[in-house]
């Protein structure tokens, strides 16, 4: 039996304050790590690259003293979406797919290439969730905004207001747990009145039908809260321009060396994956 506790399965948006070396990195440096791992996960042409991105993300998480189980928790809620995508891969034939057929049922068939694609999707999605989860676990909302500002400052202009963009991103991340909390409240309200949430029914369609009525109240409650926050910011003279900049985070010895090595590693892995890894294991 499990409690209706949505936030327990969401690692994204939960800052975990430890005094690890990674926590002390400048926000912009953390963005570089996220960007590097994301590129590795997305651009990797084989599951090896994607698996490597997960491995590196795990190592970074260990170095940040963030539990791997905590990061993996977030995979569970999105598993139905990943599985649905997998089913779609199997349902439709891919043009030019000449790989051997593993299973055939009427007009549907499962090929080696399709299995390959599904594994790629699973690994890449897992990698992305872990990477973003790690990032928000070691970066405060303020630093998330500060990092964006630091990186994009050269492009700041009237038409590209970097500070506003940074605040929008950090506020959006801050709203993840808020929306999860609202969803949980409303699910509880409806479960109390006989809706099937966490009460044992596994039918996907019944589950989807159960979640449909949540959409309106969750949106309404989230918008209400967003409006309150917007009013609170306006009341404190927020205009998006002319703010005093906070003091800069001091750069530590070794930060730059680490970043250069890290980026080099990512590039090497990508090149290696492109040239060799995939041919080693590609079964078709």
């Amino acid at each position, binding site marked *: 039996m499990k409690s209706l506790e949505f936030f327990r399965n969401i690692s994204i948006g939960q800052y975990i304050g430890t005094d690890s070396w990674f926590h002390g990195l400048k926000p912009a440096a953390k963005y570089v790590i996220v960007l590097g791992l994301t590129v590795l996960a997305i651009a990797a042409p084989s599951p090896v690259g994607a698996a490597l991105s997960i491995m590196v993300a795990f190592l970074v998480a260990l170095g940040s003293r963030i539990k791997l189980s905590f990061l993996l928790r977030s995979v569970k809620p999105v598993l139905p979406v990943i599985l649905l995508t997998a089913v779609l891969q199997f349902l439709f034939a891919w043009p030019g797919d000449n790989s051997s057929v593993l299973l055939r049922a009427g007009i549907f068939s499962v090929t080696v290439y399709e299995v390959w694609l599904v594994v790629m999707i699973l690994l890449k999605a897992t990698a992305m969730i872990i990477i973003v989860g790690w990032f928000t676990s070691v970066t405060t909302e303020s630093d998330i905004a500060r990092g964006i500002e630091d990186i994009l400052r050269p492009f700041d202009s009237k038409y590209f207001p970097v500070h506003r963009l940074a605040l929008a991103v950090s506020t959006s991340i801050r709203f993840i747990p808020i929306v999860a909390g609202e969803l949980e409240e409303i699910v509880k309200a409806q479960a109390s009145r006989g809706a099937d949430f*966490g009460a044992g029914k596994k039918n996907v369609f019944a589950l989807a039908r159960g979640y449909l009525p949540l959409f*309106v109240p969750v949106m309404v409650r989230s918008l209400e809260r967003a409006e309150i926050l917007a009013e609170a*910011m306006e009341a404190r003279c927020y205009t998006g321009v002319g703010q005093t900049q906070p003091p800069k985070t001091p750069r530590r010895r070794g930060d730059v060396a680490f970043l250069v090595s890290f980026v080099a590693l990512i590039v090497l892995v990508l090149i290696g994956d492109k040239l060799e890894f995939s041919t080693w294991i590609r079964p078709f």
Partner: protein
Amino acid sequence: MPNTQPALIELHTVSFTYPEASSPAIKNISLKIFKGEYIAIVGNNGSGKSTLVRLFNGLRLPNEGAVLVDGLDPSLRANLYKVRQRVALVFQSPVDQIVSSCVEEDVAFGPANLGLPLPEIERRVSNALAIVGLENERARPTRALSGGQQQKLAIAGALAMEPSCIVFDEATSMLDPASKSNVLDLMDKLTAAGMTIVHVTHDMEDAARAGRIIALDHGGVAFDGVPEVFFADAADGMSRALQLGLGNPQAAEAARLFGLEIQVNETPEGLATRLRETGFFVASCDNGYSGSEAVVSETESAGEIADRAAETSDQAALADTDIVHVGASAVPSNGGKQWAFEYRNVAFSYLRGTANEVNALSDLNLKLPAGVRIAFVGTTGSGKSTALQLLDALLIPGTGEVASQGRLTTDPKADLRAIRTSAPLAIQRPESALFEVHAADDVAFGPRNQGLSGKALVERVSRWMDTVGLPYSNYRDRLSRELSGGEKRKLALAGVLAMESSAILLDEPTSNLDPASQKSIFEIVKALSSEERTIVFATHSMEEAAQAHFVAVFSAGRLVDFGPPAEIFYDRYSPSWGIGLPYTVRLTRALIKAGVSIQDKPLSLEDLRDALQKYIAQTHHVHASQDVVCEGGEA
């Protein structure tokens, strides 16, 4: 005498209508607010209070008329931020107005927006945090603060703007009694320092603390004057506050009940002294008891009064339910009746197994009898909401077990849906979970899930809409979102009641409502109580808790006491619980301290009046006997 100094805020025939609204939220209001004033703005839900204060700092701009703040018109772009710097606003929900994840950064948000140099921001942040008493929390994450601390942080954020006026928009309504008291004390402190304070509130006790009250009704000013006049009886025997459906502070109600002149902000000790001084309880050898005619019917004997008191006492209905109080565990003997709920060695943590794990409840052992009203009280974060959700199987204990009407929620084979529907929970602010377009459809959600349809469903929905005061014939096709705040709460309550379950769980059923709606909702809750239905509700109102049959007190995730309210509030109350006492209990304690021997433990002013009548009658009896002795001696 009219105030001749220039006004800080001036409204000249101001009207405001929200886009797409059919009627104006503010109608033709003219008023002046002067520097250093402490003003309470009161009114029912939808009367325009929040809109009015947003006109003060340019968050809303009038459609008609003009607003001037320190002579500046906020409708001019160049003035807008000068006005907002002068009139700061603290909102209702502590967590929703926090912008940053770190305490000092959040306080610095406003000054940074003003473009002030870093040393000046640093000075303002330090100063503001020192005023609200959060200087030691400076580097902490904002989410690690309690609800009360978060509201203090919001006040610090306002103070850092160095405004002339701070508007508190129902800023104490979501706080527990202890935190609320802290914030109110802070308002007094700021007023003493010369700050203008505007407090929008539903609580007449809080309003009475102000020097001036502005009451709104349907967008217009219905009263503007001192509290003494607002709460004083008018020619029809009702105060202006009562006429507007806002109620009187408890001190004023008590003074009224005992026929004394109303003195706003009078402490229970003050009223007790006045009661003694006016001679209500002073018996005389010569003429019986002087002054007591005002409260004692001449035709009633002391015995009759005692009988009536016993009949009307809620506790009489529980004559067969005795409590054995065992430290933090409570095991009432219920005369062989079935227990409605039982916690056995229960512990629960949120985010269990994660780095952010928060312990919410520990070592909870408690049996709740069936067919009674039980109040869960405690400060914010004390564990009462968690305890409610464990009863409904919305949360499953980490250790221990919960029996919900005979069924273990931890049993892997348990039908959670059946457990939940047999004890449905109305969450906090349940009206915001309304999702059907039409009112009747929302109420029908639960019964439909129970398998009802057609005529039976209509009959069920109709019955409960009628019961909560939303007649089915008038309200069934009304749009849920267009109902008033009180009506929405009633509709959400009807949705839970329509389950026709043997138990109902209510999480702060009257919070954030105006006094009339609060009263109406709680009357419904009380009327639902029956031998067949158990009601468990969490509340911050000790007046409501006093009307329960049992009170469970939670503190820091533990049950610290359980028993009938009379025992909890009279015999075992501890200030460390942070829950406060019902007014009647405070007054009774003051009377006892003043030498009035009250044997009963009254929980309402009416019960106190009866107890005093008994006391007077007994005193009279003693003096009458002494008269006989005196006369016999003389003879």
